[in-house]
């Protein structure tokens, strides 16, 4: 059930109406059942994987809190092994086997080909396992008391708005909210609904329209000119942002309608003036997860310059692998780690860039955007060879086919991009989401909602395109 489908719209309306109609004590049951239904709409049997990790983490959480000394660590390890084990089997096993087979072949060692698992990756696996791990780690660190209510803990992992593509929540933010008695709030509901509309607009009017252009170029990259490849890479940068941040907006909005506040996942990332700043604005729930549980655990920047670079590289390489079992994602992570290390070496400080003159800011924004675009080539390409081919052709200025920019195709693309920039500029100035979701009077939210709805009907891609981050 995709967020950009009519099916979800119906699901959302029914779940929300029933949620508000029920008394508080029954709401968690309703949300849990709805979340199970939502997840089972993809591959029903994979619900068992979720229930398996939920059961282990629930018990581990309580045991970590109650146990003393080494036993605490043992339960933490049990939880981490269970979660990472599921990830290893479903996500990385075939990649590992592939590379072992290749390695043995290249060393001319006679061997039986190691068997592959013919399984489909459970949707959103990396998201909910990381969220589950953040719970046991926080309990272990003593930052959060273990949840005694199994149903609420299960809801923490399975809460449908953020189940399949984040934000990767922390227990401190979400679990207390499940205990609170929620009352219907007109303003919050209105802001939530507008945010959902904004997310759908980003996905179907901008992201999916860009995707058509990107796919047509990247699927036949050999015949395209340098300019065509460069434009497609820019378009992919916009596509992936609109696709993923659009999903996050729908997730945050649908939770807000029910009175829940999820963490922000994006803050205008392409307006970042350095890659360091970019990672404070892009997929914030993952970057902070990696910072809090990996980078800092490795020693962060406390162990001297060279170990800081090592930690940055390791964190970003694992961040790359988090996305998928492919060397392209490893390269993507490597490039980001390299950028961050170089910026550390050059002493780039995010706060200091705020004081720079406007032209310097603009130059840095442009440079950062292009550095990130280079990483997107590896993210989007089907193979390492394809990515290298595209990068080389962009640099070498090779002639070739260029897609015709007809008003019928370029019009919606430019309209969507223009509106995106306009509204997000408002966000940039207002510094918070509410700034672009006006609610003091009825006129502005009504006009905003009507305009978005009409744009979605008239220009949205209605084929129900998959969200890119669902595959992770």
């Amino acid at each position, binding site marked *: 059930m995709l967020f950009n*489908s*009519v*099916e979800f719209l*119906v699901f959302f309306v029914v779940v929300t109406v029933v949620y*508000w109609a029920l008394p508080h004590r029954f709401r968690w049951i309703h949300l849990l059942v709805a979340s199970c239904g939502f997840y089972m709409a993809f591959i029903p049997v994979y619900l068992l994987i979720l229930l398996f990790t939920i059961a282990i983490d629930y018990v581990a959480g309580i045991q970590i809190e109650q146990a003393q000394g080494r036993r605490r660590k043992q339960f933490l390890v049990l939880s981490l092994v269970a979660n990472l084990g599921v990830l290893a089997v479903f996500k990385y096993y075939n990649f590992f086997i592939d590379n072992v087979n290749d390695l043995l072949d290249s060393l001319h060692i006679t061997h039986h080909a190691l068997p592959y698992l013919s399984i489909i990756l459970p949707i959103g696996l990396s998201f909910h396992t990381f969220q589950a791990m953040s719970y046991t780690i926080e309990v272990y660190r003593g930052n959060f008391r273990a949840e005694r209510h199994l149903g609420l803990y299960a809801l923490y992992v399975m809460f449908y708005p953020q189940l399949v593509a984040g934000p990767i929540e922390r227990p401190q933010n979400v679990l207390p909210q499940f205990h609170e008695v929620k009352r*219907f709030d*007109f303003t919050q*509901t*209105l802001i939530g609904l507008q945010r959902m509309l904004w997310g759908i607009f980003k996905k179907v009017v901008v992201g999916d329209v860009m995707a058509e252009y990107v796919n047509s170029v990247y699927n*036949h990259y*050999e*015949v395209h000119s340098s300019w065509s490849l460069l434009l497609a890479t820019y378009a992919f940068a916009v596509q992936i942002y609109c696709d993923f941040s659009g999903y996050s907006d729908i997730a945050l909005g649908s939770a807000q309608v029910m009175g829940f506040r999820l963490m922000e996942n994006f803050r205008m990332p392409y307006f970042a003036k350095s890659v360091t700043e970019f990672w404070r604005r892009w997929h914030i729930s993952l970057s902070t997860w990696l910072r809090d549980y990996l980078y800092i655990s490795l020693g962060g920047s406390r162990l001297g310059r060279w170990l800081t670079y090592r930690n940055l590289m390791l964190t970003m390489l694992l961040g790359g692998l988090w996305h998928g079992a492919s060397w392209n994602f490893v390269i993507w992570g490597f490039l980001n780690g390299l950028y961050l290390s170089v910026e550390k070496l050059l002493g780039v400080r995010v706060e200091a860039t705020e004081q720079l003159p406007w032209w310097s800011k603009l130059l840095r924004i442009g440079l950062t955007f292009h550095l990130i675009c280079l990483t997107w080539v590896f993210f989007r390409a089907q193979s390492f060879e394809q990515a290298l081919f595209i990068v080389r052709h962009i640099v070498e200025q090779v002639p*070739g*086919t260029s897609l015709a920019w*007809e*008003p*019928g195709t*370029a*019009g*919606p693309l430019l*309209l969507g991009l223009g509106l995106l920039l306009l509204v997000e500029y408002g966000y940039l100035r207002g510094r918070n989401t509410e700034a672009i979701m006006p609610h003091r009077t*009825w006129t502005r*939210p*009504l006009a905003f*909602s*009507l305009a978005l*709805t*009409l744009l979605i*009907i*008239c*220009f*949205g*891609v*209605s*084929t*129900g395109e998959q969200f890119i981050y669902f595959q992770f």
Partner: protein
Amino acid sequence: MKRFALFFALFAGLLLLIDRGGAHLLDHVYARTYVGQKGGILNHYFARPAPPALVLMGNSRASLDVNPDSLPVEAFSLAHPGTSQIFQSGLLSLLAERGRLPQTILLHIDLDEYIRPSFPADIRNLRHYYGQAPLVTQYSQELSRWEPLKHGLALYRHNGRLFGLAKNHYLQRQGAAPSQGFDPYPPTAQDSINTLYSTRYLAAEQYRLNRGHLRYLHDFVTLCRQQQVRLICFTTPYYRVPPHVRESAGVVDSLLRRAGVPYLNYAATAAPPALTAMRYWRDATHLNSRGIPHYSQLLARELQPLLAAQVPEPAGGQPSAYLALAQR
């Protein structure tokens, strides 16, 4: 809660008002636009005083490779680039509903469709005619059970078309000629690269026969029989015949043979002698304007005896060739 209900009612009311008003206005503009690849060409066809003797249907291989003026009878090309058999069947259903069927339909069959997954969403190219043609409605509803809900909003008919419509309307006002359905590509320096690349791509393509796709062709054949329209199928040549053609042509041919539909398959063998040179090709499956006259003449010659034959009687209770194939 009351405030929200009131807000929502106001929102829904205004949306409905704008939707109906906007759609009415756009329908008005659309119906009077005769320029453009999809809507324009159809409107131009419907505006004719009478249907021509022959209508050419198919995808870009039909629209780019065949000059309708070279054919032995008065012909109009309703071929639409980028569409598949699903679209052609939906379009035929629309022509039947409007009573605008010609005496003969020359349908191009793209054999590549039968080795790739069907693309049912292709019918959305005819979403403007949802509810007006049985097959368009049926195929659309098969896409998703929520399709009727989407069509509850009248503006959805114009989804993704507004800029194209505005452009076509503007061009028409500037004096652009109505679409004729034939818009050949002049040769370019890129042609040889495209031809080599796409030939290599087709030759290397992993394929699996998609017999399910025959369903749409079967619907097309059945409707032609019901409406007493003579149907002639053809497939344009490839620059180099790809490996899958023998199998996919076999599947198509067996259906057409059972239904008694003549099938001129120029892909069965190497490109006709007049078209073997690369300079005639735009890519592996399309001719450029140098190659088109050669091919159109060849096609016209072979059509002549077929057009002289009697128009078939309605089938009346014949067993479904599609079902027979599907059961095998």
